[in-house]
């Protein structure tokens, strides 16, 4: 029985985790992820790529919304900018993908300053709606900036190769997404354990006190915007690589709301939460579909008329029920488990 553990050196304190169990499970998970293409079929692999992209996007949004407390409904906009940045540079300008993908992120980061600077004084939902406005405006601009974005016609994204592998499908795409995900997660975890991450958290909790501690709000809020949208932009680039065709419909506003749902459901502010949330919400429709296929006969008239909507309703219901019983999200569930097991069999 582990009854909590004590750190002996400060080195342990700054490590991402000093818990052997966590380390070994993470290692096992990584190995499993690396071997996945050998073990699963193409569809599952595609799903996994989608999940990975969602993870990247959620971790990015979490920097801004979870960590810094700046609620953003502009996710769809940043995704779109990143995706278009990557697509245009890759397809129209012939950049190699290892350049165009981060470049798309950089474009999103640059654009984020356009939102960030005017919104510095905004709080809470006022900021949320302003970022929503941004998403609307981005989609409008993309539609009308035809010479660059091809406007309504959309762009076919192809020709992304790394070491001669086509990274737009199958295992190469999967490894690319996995690589990006691991990098992004590590990067964010690292930043979060330095003064920058603490500055963000401080701003979220009490901005005046944060200032009194020497934190420059302008700088750190903008930094959060830039880093977050860079990551989200890269996620957008991955989306464009995966589905290989983008137009503005791909980045519907509903994505912004789904993104927020992911990080809230996962547990605001925590990277692990964002990951869990992304996995959960991306796979939820799949789970629901399987469930209904088990209990219903496809092809019946009931099926064609109702089942699809019922699946949608079930999706909403699961979210609601989940929050009802676990308001602090999946990460809360996780913590409870941990608390329970480390205290077991003593209740408190």
């Amino acid at each position, binding site marked *: 029985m582990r009854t909590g553990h004590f750190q002996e050196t400060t080195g342990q304190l700054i490590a991402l985790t000093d818990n052997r169990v966590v380390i070994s499970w993470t290692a096992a998970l990584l190995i499993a992820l690396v071997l996945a293409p050998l073990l699963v079929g193409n569809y599952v692999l595609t799903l996994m790529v989608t999940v990975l992209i969602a993870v990247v996007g959620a971790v990015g949004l979490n920097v801004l919304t979870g960590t810094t407390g700046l609620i953003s409904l502009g996710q769809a906009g940043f995704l779109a900018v990143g995706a278009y940045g990557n697509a245009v540079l890759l397809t129209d300008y012939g950049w190699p993908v290892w350049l165009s993908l981060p470049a798309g992120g950089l474009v999103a980061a640059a654009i984020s300053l356009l939102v960030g600077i005017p919104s510095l004084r905004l709080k809470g939902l006022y900021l949320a709606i302003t970022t929503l406005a941004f998403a609307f405006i981005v989609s409008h601009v993309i539609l009308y900036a035809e010479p660059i974005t091809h406007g309504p016609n959309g762009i076919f994204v192809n020709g992304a190769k790394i070491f001669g592998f086509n990274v737009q499908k199958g295992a190469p795409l999967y490894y690319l997404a996995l690589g990006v995900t691991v990098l992004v997660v590590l990067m964010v975890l*690292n930043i979060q354990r330095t003064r920058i991450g603490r500055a963000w958290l401080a701003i979220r909790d009490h901005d005046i006190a944060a200032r009194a501690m020497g934190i420059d709000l302008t700088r750190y809020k903008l930094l959060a915007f830039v880093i977050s949208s860079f990551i989200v932009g890269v996620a957008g680039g991955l989306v464009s690589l995966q589905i290989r065709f983008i137009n503005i419909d791909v980045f519907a506003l509903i994505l912004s709301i789904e993104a927020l749902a992911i990080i809230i459901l996962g547990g605001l502010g925590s990277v692990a939460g964002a990951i869990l949330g992304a996995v959960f919400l991306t796979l939820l429709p799949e789970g629901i579909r399987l469930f209904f296929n088990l209990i219903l006969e496809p092809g019946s008239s009931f099926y064609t008329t109702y089942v699809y909507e019922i699946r949608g309703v079930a999706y909403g219901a699961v979210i609601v029920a989940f929050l009802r019983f676990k308001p602090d999200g999946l990460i809360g569930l996780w913590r409870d488990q941990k608390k329970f097991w480390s205290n077991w069999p003593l209740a408190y």
Partner: protein
Amino acid sequence: MSFLHLEGVTKKFGGLTAVSNINLTVERGQIYSLIGPNGAGKTTLFNLISSVLPVSSGSITFDGRDITRLPTHAMAGLGMARTFQNLAVFKHETVVNNILTGLHSQLKTDPLSAAVFWGRARKEELWARERAEEIIDFLEIEDLRNLPVGTLSYGQQKRVELGRALAVNPRLLLLDEMVSGMNQEEREDIGRFVLDLKEELGMTVLMVEHDMGIVMDISDRVCVMHHGARIAEGTPAEVSENPDVIEAYLGGGSRAA
């Protein structure tokens, strides 16, 4: 050159003059107390000194430097730290993280090295942790170390706030009603501690207090404010004799300790 100097400092909120034409000089290494009835403008004056609010007029110099128009976040770097009357802790963060945040301006990590977390970022972080642990140790809040501050009791939160201010490693420490909500033993501890800060670290402390016990016992000088203005200044003994002060603030035969 005096350490902290206020010249004609005034603050207006709409029609209300919360601080009016205050002149005040604090010398290096002093314990300087600011007292006065509720709403006298003490906290507002703190807010002006720490640049949380802009002054309406007047000027403030700190260690020979005009800080009147500097942004709030520059203060910590100059060696000024404060606590807040109404608790301004980072509620959802752990005690350690709150204290680490106080170290912000002494750390230099930039986003890139932070992302890599190698070399300097890592060394810095190790140093910061050690420093934070010292403070935690000192405040005797080891067992609260990893609890979110929001779940602590009022007095515990005050202590965390003090720890956070100490982490700034200030030369001037502003304490706004530090001992309120503490019992006598704890007050004595804090009082003793403030004296030590002065005597052994040479820290200058400016404090707002309603606890006359601590004010009279440990201050070198006391300034009394009333309706935004300064009505008396001097040594504790001088001030407590001053009839205006007795009239405006202390009251006769106070029950309060």
